[in-house]
């Protein structure tokens, strides 16, 4: 399944539901489908729209989904310059914990079994293993 999502944050919820329904084939448990997949995809889409495509509605976020027997694999790519995923401050330190933003990547890393960025940092591959 492939999706091209306009860079509009209001569309994130609908895009997530579309993908979640497509992936509702028994690979992931209902709980992981409801929480891990939905939250992880919402984070990845929001990051791509906000920081990648900078809310430019003429740009699309491309999403590729593979629901295999052993795992669900989702690639989310934007047209931005990319970023260094290792250069994100820890949002749980005492000086950061009360900040309103900066938790997206931290949350994302904890929701999936594998996460991999391309070299440029404008495409992320999320893997949720079966179960």
């Amino acid at each position, binding site marked *: 399944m492939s999706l091209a999502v306009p860079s509009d*944050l*209001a*569309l*994130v*919820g609908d895009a*997530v539901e579309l993908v979640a329904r497509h992936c509702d084939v028994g690979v992931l448990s209902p*709980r992981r489908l*409801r*929480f*891990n997949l*939905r*939250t992880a995809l*919402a*984070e990845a889409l*929001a990051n791509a729209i*906000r920081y990648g495509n900078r809310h430019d509605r003429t740009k699309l976020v491309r999403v590729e989904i593979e629901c295999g027997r052993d795992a669900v694999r989702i690639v989310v790519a934007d047209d931005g310059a990319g970023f260094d995923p290792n250069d994100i401050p820890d*949002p*749980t330190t005492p000086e950061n*914990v*009360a*900040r*309103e*933003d900066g*938790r*997206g990547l*931290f*949350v994302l890393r*904890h929701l999936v079994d594998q996460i991999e960025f391309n070299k440029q940092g404008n495409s992320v591959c999320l893997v949720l293993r079966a179960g």
Partner: protein
Amino acid sequence: MGFSLTKDPRGVVVVGVDGQLIVGNRQELKQKVLDALEGGTRRFVIDFTKTGYIDSSGLGVLVSLSKKVREQGGELRLAGLNEDLQTLFELTKLDTLFAITKTPAEALAAF
């Protein structure tokens, strides 16, 4: 899907989050709470009993609202988190910033 507001006899506003609290609808929640704050409400319970997932933008708006309510001398409590959402709050250490109870009734009783 959406947000529901109810007021108990003591004036505590309970906001139910049905479905999800994410980047696409967080502004709606923010406006509802700020409107109630502007109208004089100082005690809030955000009820997540019917919530499937919350993203980091949703967490961020809760942090923001909690600050604004506290600045006005009030308090915002969270209730009804399922196991996954509770883990999310613990993981991000936001459980240290909020008063969290298992049920809305417990949150109301604690005011």
